[in-house]
């Protein structure tokens, strides 16, 4: 098996090969410098944000209202990115906001994908009644007007903070992953190596998560990456509509939603623009990484 893979890798034209293995991904990244750059950039950005937010910035000091510094412009009196109408440091808010947004997006992605993948594999592996039962549920959930229901739920939840937001959004995000994993697992589960494992008496659990799962890995990496990008968007969208986090918990979404006030939009750019650009750069990066990953999962599109 390994030898066969190697042969494909070394052949100039990859004619047909199962898209597996982290080498394929690595090779794809080596080929695509922009994706590589994006990947490293995102990692660096995340690390920087988390480090600065957790150890360097004092949240209380950032959120302290200082009326003398109301709408201080960037670069004036030590405010790198200026201050908002309450004199709160925008740079600090940007970093804390980015941390919160990333945290939310990562948590939702992990939560939704763990549920989705587990359910998908179970459905695909067992098939039959379990598969049918959950498929009905997924069919139902997938056609729901998700955004509307999230908004309704958000208004119901009394104490509504980061954790609640994560759970609410994650509750509506697992279905597509489950469906994707299920369809792949369904075909994979019919393969010989699975039947072989079964006859050898390997436990179902081991087959599902040690046998099946790794074979779906490259597909899942793509799915997870793109989900992550989507989840950053959902949080900002909700905040924009006024159903997101309170301003005392800054997130990229709350910072951007300040732009709703035309005066801030037109003459106080430092309040909303940095957060917008951060999102833009982040999403672009994820997209380039995602594209490279997708290429590595699809032999036809590989660069070489």
């Amino acid at each position: 098996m390994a030898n066969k893979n190697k042969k494909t890798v070394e052949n100039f034209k990859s004619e047909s090969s199962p898209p597996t293995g982290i080498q394929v991904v690595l090779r794809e990244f080596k080929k695509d410098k922009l994706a590589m750059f994006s990947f490293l950039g995102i990692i660096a950005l995340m690390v920087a944000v988390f480090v600065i937010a957790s150890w360097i910035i004092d949240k209380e000091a950032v959120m302290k209202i200082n009326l003398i510094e109301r709408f201080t412009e960037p670069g004036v009196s030590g405010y790198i990115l200026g201050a908002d109408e309450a004199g709160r440091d925008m740079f600090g808010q940007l970093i804390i906001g980015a941390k919160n947004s990333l945290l939310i997006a990562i948590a939702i992605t992990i939560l939704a994908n763990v549920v989705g993948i587990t359910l998908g594999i179970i459905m695909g592996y067992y098939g039959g009644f379990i598969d049918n039962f959950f498929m009905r549920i997924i069919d139902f959930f997938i056609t729901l007007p998700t955004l509307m229901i999230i908004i309704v739920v958000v208004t119901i939840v009394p104490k509504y903070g980061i954790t609640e937001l994560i759970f609410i959004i994650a509750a509506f995000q697992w279905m597509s992953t489950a469906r994707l994993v299920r369809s792949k697992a369904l075909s994979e589960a019919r393969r010989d190596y699975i039947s072989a494992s079964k006859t050898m008496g390997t436990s179902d659990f081991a087959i599902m998560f040690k046998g099946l799962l790794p074979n779906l890995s490259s597909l899942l990496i793509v799915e997870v990456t793109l989900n992550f990008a989507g989840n950053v968007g959902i949080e900002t969208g909700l905040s924009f509509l006024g159903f997101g986090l309170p301003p005392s918990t800054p997130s990229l979404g709350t910072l951007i939603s300040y732009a709703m006030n035309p005066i801030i939009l037109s003459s106080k750019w430092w309040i909303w623009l940095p957060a917008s650009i951060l999102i833009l750069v982040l999403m672009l990066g994820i997209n380039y990484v995602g594209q490279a990953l997708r290429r590595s999962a699809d032999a036809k599109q590989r660069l070489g």
Partner: protein
Amino acid sequence: MGFVSTKELLTIRNLRTSFRIKDTFYPAVDDVSLTLRKNEILAIVGESGCGKSTLATSIVGLHNSIHTKVEGEILYNNQNLANLTEVQFNKLRGNDIGFIFQDPLSALNPLMRIGEQIAEGLIYHTKLNKKQREARVLELLEQVGISNASRVANQFPHQLSGGMRQRVMIAIALSGKPAIIVADEPTTALDVTIQAQILDLLKSLQDEIQSGIILITHDLGVVAEIADRVAVMYAGEIIEEAPVIELFRNPKHPYTRSLLNSIPQTHSENEKLEIIQGMVPSLMKLPREGCRFSSRVPWLDESVHEKNPKLHEVGPGHLVRCTCWQHFYFEDKEGSVNG
């Protein structure tokens, strides 16, 4: 086997087809010269990756013009096909030259009816009107042995069996009554029983329309069955070329011998299969100087290879590259020398 004319239909001289990888061109077909005569089936044999399919697509100009460079001469009717523009080539393709693909399912447009697909070429190469084209389509379908032609013409590819599809492909290739047919592994994707039918069909059609066929294959069984002449390719080069009987009886190049050995033969039950292990080196790592086969036979002394291996005529119409064949022996597992 039909009568092979001596008239040269297609002459390939010093053909070099290179692919671009990161701004560098790597030849996949390197300095190949071949001739195809009228009413002849020329088989080109080799492992996958040896450049035989590239050779085929170069002849019909189906390669990607951005990433591929074709140098040398492919002479047909006093035209050098290697220098033709797309527009010029289109006058030949489907008319003078037909092409048959390996996998008839993917080679047919899944969203077009069979009849439409066959008729498409007729629009540009004939002056037939719509009705006449339809009639010609049915005629072609019957010619390739499809009995319920009018029904099949209205069907989509996915509704046909593999063999039927390949017959349709052949019908497409024949639609312009071509002088040359290039068939790239036409039977590989088919069941064994169907393979035989398709080969029979090809052969009978050739007798009928007297065209030259270039048959690309890795299957020596197929070669033995219908080819007139065989060229063996390795790493972009032709390493041996001979009439089919000569090649099977008297293979010279170690690679050819190894290939022939890989066919299980009933009459040599007791003989040990002797095959050279390893594979064709990748395009980028290919040694461009010296004998390209040397890396597969490391147990032979360097000196037995030519510096610039050339094809040597060793018999009537029998050419072999390099001199190493004269010194070749199979490496035995136990280290003993074996002839």
